[in-house]
């Protein structure tokens, strides 16, 4: 059995702020998800967050909801998303892969079967946005037993909860930048730096920030206050724009190149 210290995420040595992109498994097609993951790796991604599409995602804004809908039309499921991981490995994706899923699909697969499947397919971590600390004991234990850390989130409203969540964090700690669901935001709150500083004070694992980060200016502003940035909706919106090209055999390479360029430009301040 792997000890938690030995997991890929626990071994994270952060020498520069990490770029953690999020894409939805199956959007716009399962095979293209793999190519998008490769493009992100080439663009410098350090960890990939692979979203499992869900019919009723409470923490997601319209962009990711639409992506989930496209992926569900491709018959994507939690099980198939997990099985996409070894396919990605075969095609050359080497960075750690975190599965981002809502709790209900995990419950239906069965918590133990979920972890067995995730371990077999070498998933490196999981993130369940609607499973707060108080409800997560079983998942945490199963995660520890299988060496798959459960990534915790802290929000600007967490206040007194920060210490409790941070002291139990595994892998890395995910800070929600501002109140709200995922999505592109023009401005981030002025108090964000203070919040990140506070979280870092309590955390023994790398602290990353996400939700609403969509410009290189924002990345530039944040890089000194955290160990990494998560970018989701901005990339998913780009995929949506490139949807037709990505699904046209002769235009696909061009679309992937544009996606790669876009990801690089967003995260240039990290390099």
């Amino acid at each position: 059995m792997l000890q938690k210290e030995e997991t890929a995420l626990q071994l994270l040595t952060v020498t520069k702020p990490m770029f953690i992109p999020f894409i939805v498994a199956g959007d716009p097609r399962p095979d293209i998800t793999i190519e998008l993951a490769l493009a992100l790796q080439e663009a410098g991604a350090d960890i990939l967050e692979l979203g499992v599409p869900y019919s009723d995602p409470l923490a997601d804004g319209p962009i990711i909801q639409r992506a989930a809908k496209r992926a569900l039309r491709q018959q994507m499921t939690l099980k198939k998303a997990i099985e996409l991981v070894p396919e990605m490995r075969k095609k050359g994706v080497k960075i750690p892969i975190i599965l981002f899923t809502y709790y209900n699909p995990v419950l239906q697969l069965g918590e133990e079967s979920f972890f067995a499947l995730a371990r077999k397919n070498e998933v490196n971590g999981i993130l369940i946005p609607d499973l707060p600390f108080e409800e997560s004991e079983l998942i945490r234990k199963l995660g520890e037993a299988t060496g798959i850390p459960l990534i915790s989130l802290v929000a600007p409203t967490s206040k007194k909860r920060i210490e409790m969540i941070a002291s139990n964090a595994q892998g890395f700690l995910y800070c929600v930048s501002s109140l709200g669901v995922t999505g592109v935001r023009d401005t981030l709150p002025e108090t964000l730096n203070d919040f990140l500083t506070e979280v870092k004070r309590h955390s023994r694992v790398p602290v990353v920030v996400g939700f609403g980060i969509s410009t290189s200016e924002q990345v530039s502003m944040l890089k000194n206050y955290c160990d990494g940035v998560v970018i989701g909706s901005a990339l998913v919106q780009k995929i949506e724009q490139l949807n037709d090209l990505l699904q046209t055999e002769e235009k696909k390479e061009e679309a992937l190149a544009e996606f790669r360029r876009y990801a690089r430009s967003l995260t240039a301040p990290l390099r």
Partner: protein
Amino acid sequence: MYNVPNENGRFGDFGGKFVPETLMRPLEEIEEELAKALADEEFKAEYVRILQEYSGRPTPLTFASNLTKKLNGAKIYLKREDLNHTGAHKINNAIGQALLAKRMGKKKIIAETGAGQHGVAAATVAAHFGMECIVFMGEEDIKRQELNVFRMKLLGAKVVPAYSGNRTLKDATNEAIRYWVQHCDDHFYMIGSVVGPHPYPKMVREFQRIIGDEAKQQFLEREGKLPDVIVACVGGGSNAIGMFYPFLEDNVTLVGVEAAGKGIDTPHHAATITKGTKGVIHGSLTYLLQDEHGQIIEPYSISAGLDYPGVGPEHAYLASIGRVRYESVTDEEAIWAFQLLSREEGIIPAIESAHALAKAVQLAKTLRSDQTVLVCLSGRGDKDVQTMMNVAKGGNGIAVANRN
């Protein structure tokens, strides 16, 4: 002794708080303030005073004499929540939550609504207390319940359509929660049923138990004993829990009635306890209509208020321990009961309540004339007149029969 939920908001396996971290502290704040409010005699007196002076409580207990005579079975009594201000039991909860919001210093209310009754109640109390109100409503329900949408707007509320899913109550609830995640610092989310994360199922029960408390007293005065059977419709289940809760430790048969839509053996129903499996929806663990991969299945009912894929976690618990029997009634049976009550008693019920009534009629026929059935008539049918006109035109494939 019946004592749920526990401190984690669990009713046995059910309930809990399955929400994004952003909402955890706001939920704790509501929990803390609710505990103080429920222990505060002044708060409770204010709640009762507003219910009496503004909403018209206590609502009467009506003996349905014509119906009883016609059925030749048990005596049927109606608890007249339809006679509340705004036309349904929803106002009880809206007044309670608005008072709590006021206590917490919140001046902006968010609500979700299916049939529009909770939306109207929320808009009404917001106007009464001088608060802003945003109501999320599925686009399909906006079409089905045009009258209630207009009422909400007259009352000064903003009605925001939900375009996802089937564009009904489930989707309106998703949108309301997403909006709350974004605005939880200054908005109070007024949930309309005994659903959602802890402490909502408990809170809504506390504000709806007045139905059962009053009914118990009225029934004892009228009959000198408790009813043999109590029947209430269950979508999320707030009128039902309000009615059942004070009777849970009594020797009374309790029957919750879900919407069987076009039949529970078809894909077109909203019979969550009858056909659902354990899962998480809108922040709590309960029974749920879902596929094997955990994707939520869109429910169906002719009644916008019952058209919900989940059910309150306390109902899931009561079903699991066998204390309440959950059965279902089709659109057709509910429409028949709707017409029956209208013609026999001069009371036009909400289609939701007609589901409970249809089951009560079935049960009453099997009981003796010295036995009694109490039905929670959760709301009045003004809002459903258009739906019934469509039915009369054959729009639902259901013929309107003259049963006389």
